[in-house]
């Protein structure tokens, strides 16, 4: 079923689908970030993915492009999942907001901005959400020290 959706997606956005992977029965589609809103709208309207489970950023420090924004979608009718990813470069960490497609995206996008430093164009309310107002830095980035800024690194074992 997910394969059929991917085929439909490839047909409608042939130039924008970068990669399709299947791992442990889960399908991941990587698409270009310019078209993310159109693709999400398409998946919602044409493929029935009416529920955005989760949205998050991933930092692949040292790789190009550095960031990925990951959308975990769910179809309440067919009970199927689909994952969409968009690569985001370090120089311009911006993506268009999908909160116009699913209102759910509002807070997860704020969280992604707060902890990962990826900002969202046209977001209705892009403020920090978990960290304090005026905090400097984005803690979930791989180059952010675990102990926080301006502290001695932890000397004990963590793992």
């Amino acid at each position, binding site marked *: 079923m997910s394969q059929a959706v991917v085929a439909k997606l490839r047909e409608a956005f042939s130039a924008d689908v970068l990669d399709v992977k299947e791992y442990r029965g889960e399908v991941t589609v990587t698409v270009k970030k310019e078209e993310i809103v159109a693709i999400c709208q398409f998946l919602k309207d044409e493929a029935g993915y009416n529920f955005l489970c989760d949205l998050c950023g991933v930092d692949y420090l040292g790789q190009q492009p550095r960031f990925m924004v990951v959308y975990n979608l769910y179809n309440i009718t067919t009970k199927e999942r689909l994952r969409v990813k968009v690569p985001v470069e370090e120089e311009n960490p911006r993506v268009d907001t999908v909160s116009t497609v699913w209102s759910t995206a509002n807070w997860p996008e704020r969280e992604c901005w707060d902890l990962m430093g990826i900002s969202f164009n046209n977001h209705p309310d892009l403020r920090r959400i978990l960290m304090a107002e005026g905090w400097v830095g984005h803690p979930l980035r791989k180059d952010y020290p*675990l102990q926080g800024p301006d502290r001695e690194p932890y000397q004990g074992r963590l793992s």
Partner: protein
Amino acid sequence: MAKKETMTINMGPQHPSTHGVLQLVLELDGETVVNAVPHIGFLHRGVEKLAENRSYHRALPLTDRLDYLAPMSNNLGYVLTVEKLLGITDQIPERAKVVRVMMAELTRIKSHLVWLATHALDIGAMTVFLYCFREREQIMDMYEKLSGARMTSNYFRVGGLSLDLPEGFVDDVTSFIDDMPGHLDTYEGLLTGNKIWQKRTVGVAPISAEDAIDIGLTGPALRGSGVDWDLRRDNPYSGYEDYDFEVITRDGCDTFDRYKNRLDEMRESCKIIRQAVDKLQPGPILADVPDVCLPPKKDVVNSIEGLIHQFKIITEGFKPEPGEVYQGVEAPKGELGYYMISDGSANPFRMKIRPPSFVNLQALPKMVEGKLLADVIAAIGTLDIVLGEIDR
């Protein structure tokens, strides 16, 4: 004509009815809420960042501290995700799966009891609070017997369970589920037909099915709006497909229907637990995957091979092949999801938690704007939030 003025007040973060350190900035016109803005993050501990710096076994205790009212549900989601990442889902022994289901359902009852107790207390029904905590105490005792801890159980393991059930545990569970439906009738006797309770809940904090899906509500809150979706039935895990239970759905979209839903869910949980007790057969509690599973304690203290085995897994951990998975479980509050990426090392490369309360709390402004200030308390209660998992 008099000039219309609104007043802005702070509710929380130190307020008994916000169920933790939640701050709400409310703009009021008289007693009507014009605008509500939740502020969260006071309890942020960086669980996701910490998990990236620990091996898979060692990240497990972090999950207890998310939704501390339902620790075993969090554990379950985590171990299922790691097992999926490793590809050992179908090697989990039957006994471990059955005990997991049994404990997850007891946890659901435990969590719902705290919800009912505090929700009722917030909107004026005090007696129920004491009754609920009396029953919850029994589950806490079972937790203690099983894992040694009352709240942070850390009982499940990647590959199975940490310990087998102690002697007499099944009898405790059986006697508890024998009594529980009667207790539920008692609560209902105090609340359901009560005029004051009905005035405070019927039609309060409404949200339509379309809005609920759009905003991402899950769990009993979504099913109170008539959306028939339960991960235990629709994307079964840990053997839930073999249990016979009903998914409780009501379409009143209000606080009263969500209340009825959760009470009925506890009855269904009792049914599931009874089936689990019947299914329980002696057998191994850990999968036979020596690279991943910690050896039984008696091997560790009695043989050098066992000790070396334990030492190796604790110091080096195990290394799933690179890949990414998402696993959702039906936690008491809604869909608890873990999205995990492995880069082939012994630590999770990225662990994103989808806490149900975080997403559910987003619906709060929609539920209370244009309503009375007193209904804000009911709305917070009916969403059943826990700040430990919202802030992570």
